[in-house]
């Protein structure tokens, strides 16, 4: 394994790093977007001389040994599921989750998807759907002829029906939590699906232990901190350049002697 190969791998890893930062920054204004970060791992080591081998006939052991590494690779891209700040929009169907938990959406295929993006609207039939037209799996329907829809912290949907004094409860929005939300698989459109690594989705009432509360009229902003992202990008670029210098040096070393 030579320095040229190792340095190229280093450059490739930094390129992936920049690509991750680019996606974070592109999604700075995406509702409830969570920031991704790269996990680097060093590659396999060759034992040129094993640690704790004897260095002389007298039996003295060389503790260090000589191990040559093979470079670096991106082992994983982790989701950093920190709460984003809440922003008021004034739209009664914009819901933000303060705390843990995901909304469960029914995809057209029948499979469930999970999202923190609580910007909903009513379709022509009065169902509460996402902006892609997918309904909440609890199937909340606002009957025609209602004026005011109030969704409280525990996810109960109350509407004012014409002719009635008291508010009517038309449904309960649930939140779903996972053992390991960092292992959810992103599907795009601000949605995630469960995987073997994330564990099964367990439903709960918002506001309960381990579940956040629902804030009506708010959206959760992305949790990107632009300063941190730009700093990562600058560091990645410098590392890229340094690795390229190693490439240049390896190039010169490979040059046949005159």
């Amino acid at each position, binding site marked *: 394994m030579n320095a040229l190969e190792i340095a190229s791998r280093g450059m490739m890893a930094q390129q992936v790093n*920049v*690509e991750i930062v680019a*996606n974070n920054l592109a999604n*700075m204004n995406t509702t409830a977007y969570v920031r991704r970060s790269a996990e680097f791992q060093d590659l396999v080591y060759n034992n040129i001389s094993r640690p704790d081998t004897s260095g002389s006939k007298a039996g003295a052991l060389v503790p260090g040994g000589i191990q040559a590494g093979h470079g670096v690779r991106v082992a*994983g891209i982790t989701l950093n599921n920190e709460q984003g700040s809440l922003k008021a929009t004034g739209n009664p169907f914009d819901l933000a989750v303060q705390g843990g938990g995901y909304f469960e959406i029914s995809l057209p295929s029948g499979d469930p998807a999970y999202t923190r993006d609580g910007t909903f*609207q009513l379709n022509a039939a009065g169902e509460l759907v996402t902006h892609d037209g997918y309904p909440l799996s609890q199937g909340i329907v606002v009957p025609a002829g209602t004026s005011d829809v109030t969704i409280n912290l525990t996810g109960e949907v109350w509407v004012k029906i014409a002719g009635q004094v008291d508010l009517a409860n038309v449904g309960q929005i649930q939140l779903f939590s996972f053992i390991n939300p960092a292992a959810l698989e992103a599907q*795009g459109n601000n949605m995630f699906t469960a995987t073997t690594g994330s564990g099964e989705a367990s439903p709960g009432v918002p506001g309960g232990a381990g579940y956040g509360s629902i804030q009506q009229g708010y959206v959760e902003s992305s949790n990107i901190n632009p300063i941190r*992202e730009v700093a990562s990008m600058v560091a990645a670029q410098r590392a890229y350049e340094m690795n390229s210098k190693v490439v240049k040096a390896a190039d010169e070393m490979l040059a046949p002697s005159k």
Partner: protein
Amino acid sequence: MRSLDIAATGMIAQQRNVEVVSNNLANMNTTAFTRRRTEFHDLLYQNLRRVGSTSSNAGTVVPSGVQLGLGVKLAAVYRIHEQGNLTATDNTFDLAVQGKGLFEITLPTGEAAYSRDGTFQLNANGEIVTHDGYPLQPGITVPDNAVDVTINAAGEVLVKIEGQVNLSNVGQIQLTTFPNEPGLEAIGDNLYLETPASGNPTSGNPADTDFGSILQGFLETSNVNAVEEISNLISAQRAYEMNSKVIQTSDEMMGTLNQLR
């Protein structure tokens, strides 16, 4: 390099964001204008290493996998139909709706359009029309010899005819509501059309349950909040700049690559 394309999607998205905010700000003084909000969604992810896949024969599971995002896209620009403020104009035919419901207007094509803009006037025949000359539905005509016109909260048009003591009722203005008002299609001139997404119209008398009431001599202002829009503009601009920095960095990195030899 992917980051170039990713940053490009970011810049395009923020540009749309600025366009929507500018449209909101430009229409700050448009009667009954509803503000818009942009909704962004992240794009596809490419699996360089599948989440939850096994990493060894022992069955150990990869906890996070390597999913690389491809950027952002504009998912929706939706209207927020919040009641605007009421401003007094003292014009006889300026009407504001307080609560739910839109006026029904007949377009020259015969199609029905809907509007919250209540700035009406009388045409040569005494019909109540909009500033473009489109008649209000149901058609109401004010007789020539009317001295005074009063429109009450229930939308009844009462005129005082010269020589008569009692007011005479020449018509009833109606309001129309939809299950999903944001689903209406805006065609400009403060007019909206019905769509499959908005649901079917329901007409009724103002001040009835579930319909708003009519205020004569007032106009509904736009529901644009200037402070909120300026802060949205600033955040859109910052995001645009950040994405352009990514393009710059990617360019420099590609330059480094080209200088290897």
